[in-house]
């Protein structure tokens, strides 16, 4: 199939305006005749549900959590970018656009990024009017901080809980629509399959996590706002339940999966301490505003951090990248941490971390100021490690955090299945090969509040007067039977190991071979190991309990099964992309200084993979990327 991104013609700054005028609209009185399913209630899902309902559509919202407010957007700490230029430091829509394309290492779709930068300013207005308690200056105006990959201060925040506050804002708007009867909310309901008829999305199959009941839901359009797949690494900063199942089931039904190898390893997480560890905790990137990153110059250093003299400390980011220093983009910061730790300079009992040191900032601004900025993060660090970061430096190390890859979508956010949309982290479109800090919240809300509610009308308008496919149609019966068979199969395997065990083993393979640095032999090894482990999984997993009550092992079984298939595709995509770009670092493709070396001639495209069945590798389709506004250059943060 030819991938048509449907990017409008015309000058970059006018594309979105023009597109909004050109696409089909559904008139206000007719919107109530349409039903839309939104899966996921994080920033993208909750904002989309609220806005679509405000417009008059009938929305059914689904979440596997017990409350929509628990979606993992809640955990985002640092902030949200917007080109407001409130700081008068030269910011503009064009600069945010430029920074995002460059930060993504020239692997994103320019027109989408420009639109994102344009609507970023509306998001802040929207959130403030909902009562999101953003940080303020004494005069009452909004405060900003700076984030990696930018030389302006454009990040809005609410202490270290920006994601929580933005999600509560969107959740509350959605609950208002639940109150109005325009959103029907299904909690503790997990989507286990997408239903299509004649190639178009017409509904979903769900499992009630409390009763085990399998239900069918039909609609004129389906929106997946189901987040990313960072938990394929097992250890990640994602919440325990984050998974790829909804997106992966859609992929198996015909939605192309784009750039799965583009994963973000966040530089500032608390290092792993032992095998029992279930997840890694992020320390917000905002800490890099005041914390200085260093390791001892000597590999055999045994002194405590405070007693190592200045001259014997290696502030590797400040030395290598004087212009951006500790605020280089995430991929650069992560890779450099790996380099110094691999070279034997690591700190901590397992020598698996680097220092993030606030001693200078405390000396300069006082303890109170630092406490005001990061108090809750410091408390969190102390709880987890038992160490006081006001007196000893934090220890940090990179961990899986975000996935830039996802379902391929066109400019309207529609996947390759007509009627199926993907929003937020679940799609691939805006961050290229590396996402800048504070841009995930921006994109999730942009998609949900300001993009999807307009673009979805284009595919709905021609359906005026037609009812959704009834749930007693054979396509629903067939999909229900498939879902039930899979659940029955899990419970019948009766093997010897828990899904947790297999997930952990899968994570080790993925981290080792498809992590911060990748090479051909490692990727080939990963493919064969993942395939072998997947086969073992289906023979040897042990799921106890039943299907008729809450059963977290059974839930996990399906999610891990899908992670196996996704992990394999990640490796294939990484192997196929024989260049380095952003978070995808192929050791075979680097500059003399060890920086990522792109190959624009051969890889300036999106790789979108088509499912061919479990035993046949996916087929790759290309969307060529054209760069009209931002000239392709070697990224430099020196």
């Amino acid at each position: 199939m030819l991938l048509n991104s449907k990017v409008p013609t015309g000058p970059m700054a006018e594309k979105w305006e023009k597109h909004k005028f050109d696409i089909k609209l559904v008139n206000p009185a007719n919107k109530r005749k349409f039903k839309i399913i939104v899966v996921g209630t994080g920033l993208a899902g909750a904002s989309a549900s609220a806005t679509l309902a405000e417009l008059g559509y009938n929305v059914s919202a689904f979440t596997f959590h017990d409350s929509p407010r628990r979606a993992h957007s809640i955990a985002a700490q640092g902030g949200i970018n917007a080109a407001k230029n409130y700081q008068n430091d030269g910011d503009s829509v064009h600069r945010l656009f430029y920074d995002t394309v460059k930060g993504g290492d020239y692997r994103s779709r320019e027109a989408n990024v420009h639109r994102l930068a344009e609507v970023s300013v509306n998001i802040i207005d929207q959130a403030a009017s909902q009562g999101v308690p953003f940080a303020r200056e004494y005069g009452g105006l909004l405060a900003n901080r700076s984030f990696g990959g930018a030389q302006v201060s454009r990040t809005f925040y609410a202490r270290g809980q920006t994601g929580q506050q933005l999600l509560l804002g969107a959740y509350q708007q959605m609950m208002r629509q639940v109150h109005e009867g325009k959103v029907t909310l299904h909690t503790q309901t997990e989507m286990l399959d997408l239903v299509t008829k004649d190639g178009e999305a017409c509904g979903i199959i769900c499992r009630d996590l409390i009763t085990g009941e399998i239900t069918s839901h039909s609609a004129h359009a389906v929106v997946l706002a189901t987040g990313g797949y960072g938990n394929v690494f097992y250890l990640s900063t994602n919440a325990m339940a984050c998974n790829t199942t909804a997106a992966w089931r859609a992929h198996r039904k015909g939605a192309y999966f784009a750039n799965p190898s583009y994963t973000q390893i966040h530089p500032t997480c608390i290092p792993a301490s032992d095998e029992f560890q279930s997840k890694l905790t992020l320390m917000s990137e905002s800490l890099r505003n005041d914390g200085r990153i260093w390791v001892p110059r000597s590999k055999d250093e045994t002194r405590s951090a405070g007693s190592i003299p200045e001259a014997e400390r290696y502030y590797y980011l400040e030395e290598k990248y004087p212009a951006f220093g500790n605020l280089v983009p995430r991929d650069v910061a992560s890779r450099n941490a790996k380099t110094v730790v691999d070279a034997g300079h690591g700190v901590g009992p397992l020598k698996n971390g680097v220092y993030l040191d606030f001693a200078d900032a405390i000396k300069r601004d006082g303890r109170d100021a630092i406490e005001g900025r990061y108090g809750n993060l410091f408390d969190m660090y102390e709880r987890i490690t038992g160490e006081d970061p006001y007196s000893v430096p934090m220890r940090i190390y990179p961990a899986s955090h975000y996935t830039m890859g996802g379902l391929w979508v066109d400019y309207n956010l529609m996947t390759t299945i007509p009627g199926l949309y993907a929003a937020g982290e679940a799609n691939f479109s805006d961050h290229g090969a590396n996402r800048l800090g504070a841009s995930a919240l921006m994109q999730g809300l942009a998609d949900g509040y300001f993009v999807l509610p307009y673009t979805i009308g284009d595919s709905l308008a021609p359906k005026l007067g037609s009812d959704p496919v009834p749930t007693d149609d054979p396509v629903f019966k067939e999909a229900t039977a498939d879902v039930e068979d899979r659940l029955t199969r899990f419970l019948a395997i009766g093997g010897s190991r828990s899904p947790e065990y297999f997930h952990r083993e899968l994570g080790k393979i993925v981290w080792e071979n498809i992590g911060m640095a990748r090479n051909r032999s490692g990727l080939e090894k990963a493919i064969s190991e993942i395939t072998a482990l997947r086969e073992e999984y289906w023979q040897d997993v042990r799921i106890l309990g039943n299907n008729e009550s809450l059963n977290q092992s059974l839930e996990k079984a399906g999610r891990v099964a899908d992670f196996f298939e996704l992990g394999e595709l990640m490796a294939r995509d990484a192997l196929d992309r024989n260049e380095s770009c952003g978070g995808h670092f192929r050791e075979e493709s680097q500059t003399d200084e060890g920086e990522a070396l792109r190959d624009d001639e051969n890889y300036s495209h999106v790789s979108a993979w088509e499912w061919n069945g479990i035993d046949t590798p996916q087929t790759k389709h290309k969307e060529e990327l054209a760069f009209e506004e931002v000239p392709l250059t070697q990224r430099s943060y020196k």
Partner: protein
Amino acid sequence: MSQTLNLTLKIWRQEGPNAKGSFESYQANNIPDDASFLEMLDIVNESLIENNQVPIEFPHDCREGICGTCGVMINGRAHGQEIGTATCQLHMRKFNDGDTIVIEPWRAAAFPVVKDLVVDRSPLDKIVEAGGYITAPTGSAPDANEMPIPKDVAESSMDAAACIGCGACVAACPNSAGQLFTSAKLWHLNSLPQGQAERYKRTEEMVETMEQYFGSCTNHGECKEACPKEISLDFIAEMNKDYMKSKVKNRKKAGQK
């Protein structure tokens, strides 16, 4: 280096909402003290699965104290003995070798047990649904800096907005009252200039919805002790004040029915 602990756990097991539950004893041996409380339960569950016993269902997700999913009674206290700490952030270094730990689900009539340690907290969403929002349809907002908000007002609102909706306040309350949760949401919105238009209507609707599900507040203050975000009791006083004002006269002044 980390130490290990040997513990005796008494855990509430209950197959479903209508089943009769009971305490079961488990030995948890060689638990590293760097593990979190939930990781300790993970280790117990892995060994149960290994011995072909159905694992314990417990609520959890983000494991960094922000999603509000987790929460159990630990030795009779919601989220355990540490102040300002959600269950997921409680670490085993706070316990001693040889301890017996009693683990129960949240105890409140409004939160029926779903299974084992998991309860149904949907009444909290009902309270928000009743009015826990500012009516601000997408696209209608003026520029964010058009309405300056004094820093201390924004900070006070944020103190209340920090609530994670875990329900520990209800579980800790001898009356199973929902005042701390409800008042935190009210103060988050009622203290801001944007929240004034619907202030009294919001207060009445949320308070009256709360009263359909939860018990009465008698100012014990147990809620605040249990709250992982240390939400202030002052918000309850503010809520009561607004509710009184609304009932007496101010809502009419504000032009609300």
